[in-house]
């Protein structure tokens, strides 16, 4: 048998229920892998005692025959989720020492289902970044590498992707505001789904851009994503944007049959200068879906080009408002004050010390676009463009398309530090294929489909209709089976 930490969620669930494995043994195997994986920088706060307590409780439930899917499954939790009594810092110095007195809805649901928390996972500060390099803890590292070059696991859910790909947990939570689940999943050769906006409660998840943020699972297989999404999703009265729509059995939707379905290939995603290896894997993915009986059609999403600039108005605007709460009064860091400093100096010094460079930049951009005289020119215009981007998708779906296939990222994982000299806008281009979905509120899943010439994983993204994550995951399941992606990073850590 493989080491227990290498199991998929579905395999672990089945082994636990059959009694072939105990939650305690599985948790021990994951804790050992976690401790042996420190070089990956994936975990930033470990919770082994809590994990073993939860595992023992799960074993009792398993024995009693009362075991939901997630019962006894060891997970890593992104640092953005508030977890009661456990540091929850959003990878920011401004939340140093913060231990929430409450539990996020998502982690509550997972723990109620019997899941085990191994620890908190690395990320970009306040989920702002695409390389995990804006973390106050230092970057997480991709388990995949080329020669001895350390690569980014992507961001912002970089620690989650690294931990799942490196088998330091069975699955992990992520959040996605512009691509933060799908891009790291693609960089690390795993599966990640951003559900429809409103499918998963945002309560207790530290906010970045509230109209775009959505949590989802990051897993070793499509089936795992279906199982875990079912455990995370559902209406929550504490999140007024969470939808009162029943959660279907996503796993049951994985029939593997997509005959007669129409898959759209958006011509605007064929960017000038698109790398040949990305184009190749995209064509290959379309071929796989065609071979499975789907019809491939070209679609047009004419406002695609404007998604990134619209995002970089809307997200910073919402962030500048959301992050106003970090003032050194109620939680986290407060700067040491000089004699005579008043409350304004306290705010200004605290925020200068507590926020990293990228967070400061986005807060200030947001402040500027919302300031008097610019609100219409930037913010309102961006919201109008957002409406047009959403309409593009609505028209494609109305024309009979069932799902849309695109690359997940414009490149494979790049080297840590490689983008340091680049200007911030170049880093933003990482999200070019993913950000449109956040603006439109649509579900999207990243599936590993192959390796590039250097041996690094490449992912494709499938985009679904609102609230139809089940059908979307079924398309992803077909793609996963056809691609037969089973490669694992060679263990060097």
């Amino acid at each position: 048998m493989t080491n227990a930490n290498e199991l998929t969620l579905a395999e672990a669930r089945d082994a636990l229920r059959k009694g072939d494995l105990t939650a305690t043994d599985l948790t021990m195997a994951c804790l050992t892998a976690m401790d042996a994986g420190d070089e990956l920088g994936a975990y930033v706060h470990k919770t082994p005692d809590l994990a073993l307590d939860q595992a023992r409780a799960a074993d009792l439930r398993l024995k009693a025959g009362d075991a939901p899917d997630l019962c006894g499954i060891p997970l890593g939790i992104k640092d953005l989720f508030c977890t009661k009594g456990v540091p929850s810092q959003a990878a920011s110095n401004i939340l140093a020492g913060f231990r929430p007195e409450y539990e996020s809805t998502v982690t509550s649901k997972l723990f109620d289902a019997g899941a085990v928390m191994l620890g908190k996972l690395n990320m970009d500060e306040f989920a702002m970044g695409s390389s995990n390099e804006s973390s106050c803890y230092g970057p997480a590292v991709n388990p995949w590498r080329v020669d001895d070059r350390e690569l980014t696991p992507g961001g912002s859910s970089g620690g989650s992707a690294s931990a799942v790909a490196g088998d330091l947990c069975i699955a992990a939570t992520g959040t996605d505001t512009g691509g933060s689940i799908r891009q790291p999943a693609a960089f690390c050769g795993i599966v990640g789904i951003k559900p429809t906006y409103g499918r998963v409660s945002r309560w207790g998840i530290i906010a970045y851009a509230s109209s775009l943020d959505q949590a989802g699972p990051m897993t070793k297989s499509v089936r795992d994503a279906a199982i875990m999404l079912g455990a995370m999703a559902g209406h929550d009265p504490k999140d007024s944007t969470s939808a009162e729509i029943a959660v279907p059995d996503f796993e049951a939707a994985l029939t593997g049959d997509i005959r007669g379905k129409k898959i759209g290939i958006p011509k605007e995603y064929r960017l000038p200068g698109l790398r040949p290896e990305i184009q190749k894997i995209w064509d290959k993915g379309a071929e796989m879906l065609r071979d499975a009986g789907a019809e491939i059609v070209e679609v047009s999403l004419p406002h695609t080009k404007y998604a990134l600039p619209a995002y970089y108005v809307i997200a910073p605007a919402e962030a500048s408002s959301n992050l106003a709460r970090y003032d050194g009064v109620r939680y986290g860091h407060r700067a040491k004050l000089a004699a005579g400093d008043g409350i304004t100096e306290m705010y200004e010094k605290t925020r200068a010390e507590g926020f990293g460079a990228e967070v400061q930049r986005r807060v200030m951009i947001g402040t500027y676009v919302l300031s008097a005289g610019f609100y219409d020119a930037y913010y309102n215009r961006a919201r109008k463009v957002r409406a047009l981007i959403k309409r593009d998708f609505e028209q494609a779906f109305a024309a009979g398309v069932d799902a849309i296939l695109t690359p997940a990222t414009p490149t494979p994982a790049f080297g840590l530090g490689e983008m340091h000299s680049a200007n911030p806008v170049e880093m933003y281009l990482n999200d070019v294929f993913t950000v449109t979905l956040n603006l439109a509120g649509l579900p999207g899943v990243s599936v590993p489909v192959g390796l590039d010439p250097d041996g690094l994983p490449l992912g494709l993204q499938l985009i679904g209709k609102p609230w139809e994550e089940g059908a979307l995951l079924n398309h992803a399941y077909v793609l996963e089976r056809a691609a037969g992606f089973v490669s694992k990073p060679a263990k060097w850590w």
Partner: protein
Amino acid sequence: MSIDVETARRVAKLARIQVDDGDLPALAGELSNILGFMEQLNEVDVEGVEPMTSVTPMRLKRRADVVTDGNIQDKVLKNAPDAREGFFAVPKVVE
């Protein structure tokens, strides 16, 4: 639109982030660069388009105006950098 040093100083002040004078020119350059990227939005014809306010067409829910929580003063103050006698403590605000 390009941002000059004075505008950068004003934005930093509005955002309540201390920025040293020496760092303002670089900040102004970065902000200008990002705003330049946003200028592309001006190419789009948005005539007659309503700004998007929510991703799914739904009414924000209302709930009865009743107390659902409370009597947790110690929990509320637990994470405060400075709490005294049941209050958050801050530097003097009013002279």
